[in-house]
């Protein structure tokens, strides 16, 4: 543990957030702002033959009504395939934007939006993914998970010779992120330059996409997104609304604000796709896996091919010599899916980890023992060693904390009153990604430091962890450090996604601090009498506002003193950190073990998760407090996926029918009981200088399978189709 790293630390932005001082996108008040309100299509497929805006235009306060007829064409490059709003009369999904009414007030815009009348040439939509799985076509390769078909050994051959085989199909419905903050943008132009406040996980990509679409240089676009009220992936891609907002502000020559309603959020960005999976397992009677075949299909839109990478981890988790994974797609008349917390991983592991549980009963073996029996010491797909892998310890610690040894192996053997009790477990897995990132550090002669990098903080505590890292390596108290993010006038950082922010931006902060230390040392050594004479950068450390001899800490000089002696007000370092080459020689993964207890009121079909224990190994833990929150959030997400969340589409109309927080059921407080998280720290010198791996997505990966496995253990009923609502529990 360092002076700050590894200690419990409250959020540095906490007070601003709870007092309302932290502005979210829609809260930037620009004088003279006009308010937009979206009008959505009432059909899923076809063409607008007529759009009547006359009544809306005459409505009080209306400034203009934009439709495909009067919206300038965006200059997107050919390769930009994402849905573009108001560019043609064609309808490609239901509740697609067909107009924006702009008025002096939000209320006037909303009232007038009801008066826009469209007439359509209607075609029959096709949204029934599960009815069309047979038609699935091979997915394009993915930048993150590689080829859509991957093999190790000869899986089919091994399957046919296996002593024990198991096969089953699993389905997951579409799910929506539903962050608290609705998507919003406020845009205005000044001297041909655009400034836009947006809800984004990736301001630089918003900038380049807007610049291209609007035909202006990137330098003339300034994107600002200091606070994000949850995103979980739905603000990674540039959604259609910032293009519209910037366009309208330019056309109207005044600031414009556009905010999604909750209903509009269901088609205003992507979602976790509908997923169908088939798993085949082949094993020896003694439990060793000899073959895994994992076929997955997800739905996509008609405009883009979204590969959800469902099978991404299947070949990297168990020591199995023969494996094959296939990813397929089905086009549907729905919006394009997008990344949603642990994309692909949680879906794929729901199927694989459920199947493994099913196999354990076939083998009459404890599910945990089956995992240990197939524990991979090196990556089974490519033979690379893991940089670190404390999964075995996670299993051990998790099982112990949970009391796994109290599990009665036979289903339906544990009961209390009207409730059957079940134990289930699963394995979690995610990457230890790192991306290039740049940070600027200004060390000031008043003893403070200002850091900036255009990353994002969608809730994990990025402001806080960067402050901790800076405090640790600059040797300055956290109160004297400010960290700025979410602004394209700051140095470039990667999108906040993939659970790579601390590894990427945090490593850049560390790198910048190391450079500053060297520079301070050479300045200090200008003084012939300096106590640091003769020491190299590795022999000194920045601590408590001083640059001091690592071994003999009384020998040192104050940072402020060094700057003052040079007559400097401040010292600036801009540092770009890139992933090191040695990463390529290793398989870089984070792991976890999840154990849950469910209580099933079998008569009434109600399932509740009474306890969950997560043991997680994801390198170094920078801040146990926010890390606990991340893993707990993962459990909550897993509960939602397993038991309640489901985007319902009426296939006759191709329309989402539950676009509200009343009808789309995210878990509420009463659904979440005891959640215990624990970390097994790994000392990983390979992944990055900080030794951190991905954590935010990892925490949910195994939960849906663990819950399903526990429901089986409680009831003897296997439910392979999420979510496990009372009707499914009764029917199983």
């Amino acid at each position: 543990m360092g002076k700050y790293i590894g200690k419990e630390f409250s959020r540095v932005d906490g007070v601003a957030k709870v007092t309302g001082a932290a502005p979210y996108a829609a809260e930037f008040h620009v004088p003279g702002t006009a308010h937009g309100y979206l009008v959505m299509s009432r059909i899923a497929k076809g063409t607008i033959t007529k759009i009547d805006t006359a009544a809306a235009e005459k409505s009080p306060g209306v400034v203009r009504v934009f439709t495909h007829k009067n919206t300038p064409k965006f200059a997107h490059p050919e390769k930009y395939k994402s849905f573009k709003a108001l560019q043609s009369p064609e309808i490609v999904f239901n509740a697609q934007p067909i107009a924006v009414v702009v008025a002096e007030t939000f209320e006037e815009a909303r009232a007038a939006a009801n008066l826009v009348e469209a007439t359509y040439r209607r075609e029959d939509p096709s949204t029934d993914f599960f009815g069309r799985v047979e038609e699935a076509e091979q997915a394009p390769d993915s930048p993150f998970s590689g080829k859509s078909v991957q093999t190790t050994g000869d899986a089919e051959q091994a399957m046919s010779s296996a002593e024990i085989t198991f096969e089953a199909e699993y389905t997951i419905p579409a799910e929506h992120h539903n962050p608290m903050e609705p998507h919003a943008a406020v845009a205005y132009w000044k001297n041909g330059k655009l400034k836009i406040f947006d809800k984004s996980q990736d301001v630089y990509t918003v900038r380049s996409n807007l610049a291209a679409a609007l035909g202006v240089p990137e330098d003339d676009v300034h994107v600002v997104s200091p606070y994000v009220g949850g995103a979980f992936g739905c603000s990674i891609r540039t959604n259609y609304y910032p293009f519209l907002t910037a366009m309208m502000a330019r056309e109207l020559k005044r600031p414009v604000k556009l905010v999604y309603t909750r209903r509009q959020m269901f088609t205003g960005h992507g979602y976790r796709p509908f997923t169908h999976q088939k798993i085949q397992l082949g094993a020896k009677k003694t439990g060793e896996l000899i073959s895994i075949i994992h076929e997955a299909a997800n739905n996509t839109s008609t405009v883009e091919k979204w590969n959800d990478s469902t099978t991404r981890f299947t070949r990297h988790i168990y020591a199995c010599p023969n494996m094959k994974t296939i990813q397929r797609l089905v086009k549907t008349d729905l919006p394009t899916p997008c990344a949603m917390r642990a994309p692909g991983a949680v879906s794929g592991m729901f199927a694989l980890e459920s199947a493994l549980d099913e196999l354990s009963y076939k083998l009459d073996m404890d599910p945990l023992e089956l995992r240990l029996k197939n524990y991979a010491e090196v990556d089974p797909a490519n033979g690379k060693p893991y940089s670190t892998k404390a999964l075995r310890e996670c299993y051990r610690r998790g099982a112990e904390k949970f009391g796994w040894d109290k599990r009665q192996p036979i289903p339906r053997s544990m009961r209390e009153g009207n409730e059957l009790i079940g134990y289930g477990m699963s394995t979690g897995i995610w990457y230890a990604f790192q991306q290039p990132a740049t940070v600027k550090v200004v060390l000031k002669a008043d003893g403070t430091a200002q850091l900036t990098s255009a990353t994002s903080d969608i809730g994990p505590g990025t402001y806080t962890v960067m402050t901790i890292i800076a405090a640790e390596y600059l040797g300055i108290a956290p109160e004297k450090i400010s960290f700025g993010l979410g602004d394209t006038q700051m140095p470039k950082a990667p999108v906040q996604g993939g659970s790579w922010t601390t590894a990427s931006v945090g490593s850049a902060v560390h790198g910048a601090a190391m450079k500053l230390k060297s520079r301070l040392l050479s300045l200090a050594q200008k003084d012939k009498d300096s106590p640091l004479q003769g020491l190299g950068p590795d022999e000194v450390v920045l601590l408590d506002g001083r640059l001091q001899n690592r071994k003999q800490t009384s020998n040192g000089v104050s940072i402020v003193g060094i700057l003052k002696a040079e007559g400097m007000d401040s010292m600036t370092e801009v540092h770009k950190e890139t992933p090191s080459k040695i990463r390529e020689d290793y398989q870089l993964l984070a792991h976890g073990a999840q154990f849950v207890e469910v209580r099933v009121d079998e008569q009434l079909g109600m399932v509740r998760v009474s306890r969950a224990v997560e043991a997680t190994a994801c390198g170094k833990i920078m801040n146990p407090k926010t890390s606990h929150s991340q893993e707990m959030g993962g459990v909550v997400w897993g509960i939602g996926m397993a038991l309640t969340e489901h985007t319902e589409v009426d296939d006759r109309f191709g329309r989402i029918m539950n676009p509200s927080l009343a009808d789309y059921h995210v878990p509420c407080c009463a659904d979440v009981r005891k959640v215990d998280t624990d970390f097994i720290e790994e000392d990983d010198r390979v992944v990055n200088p900080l030794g951190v791996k991905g954590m935010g997505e990892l925490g949910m990966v195994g939960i849906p399978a663990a819950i399903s496995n526990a429901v089986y253990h409680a009831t003897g009923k296997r439910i392979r189709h999420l979510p496990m609502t009372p009707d499914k529990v009764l029917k199983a």
Partner: protein
Amino acid sequence: MRAFEYTRADSAESAAAEAGKNTRARFLAGGTNLLDLMKEDIERPDQLIDLNRLNMTEITESGDCIRLGALVSNTDTANHPLIKQHFPLLTQAILAGASQQIRNMATNGGNLNQRTRCAYFYDTAMPCNKREPGSGCGAVGGLNRMHAIFGWSPECVAVHPSDMCVALAALDATVQVVDSQGVAREIPFANYHRLPGDSPHKDNTLAPGELITSIELTKNKMAPHSHYLKVRDRASYAFALVSVAAALHLDGNKIGKARVALGGVAHKPWRVNQMEDFLQGKPAEDEIFVDAAALAVKTARPLERNAFKVDLARRAIVRALQKARDGGMV
């Protein structure tokens, strides 16, 4: 939401009179349902008559009668000592609904008149006879997992969403109303809400302009043996798949009187008199409850996606009766 005129009423009679003049006017109580529906462009009143200054804000007792003012909040009703003492079933039912924040705003009158949660009713792009008579019913051939298994018509298969009303139905409440001429009348709860038939746009039997002033309950001997059970998709803040309000008057082990109402299964809180008659005079035993529950679901007519509700209702009735017998408020 469209522009509307705002009128503040200063007496029940003037509110009803005002409403009698304008068929497009609506009463505004807590607004938790009406304002949502206006934002979704489902309700399009051109006048709101605000009831919040009216003095229908008390719960009073006279003899065996307890009167709930129409403007008392759901929270205050549930927590009122008289209600907790005499009608714990009502307390339990109210607390099973919505969320604390919504219950704080919601009023008793508004609760009775809240509209269905049918997804097609809530989406102006979809056909719905309740919202737009003659446009067809989106749910009957669509996503009808949440819909009715009793008393529906091909014109409408929606359910009444209230929990409170299920308890009021079991407790044989009466609804006191006043019309636009100032004439008061009393409606037995069983006749208050209606089945859809061929006019699903009408949820209840109120005449245009009629205002609820209070709800009356008569004390009974069932308080120690009553239970409200709600089965839903998540542990809180979800509408019922099926709910059951059960109250028993027990004489030793013998059922003197039984009152059972179901929620989430019909266009109105669903009472099955045949089941109540069957229970009367019988011992309060599990086997009897099972037979009674079977009687209750005999007339069920499930839709394509809600067949599970029939079985669920049967099981929920048994459980609720068991809990009522055992005196369990939990």
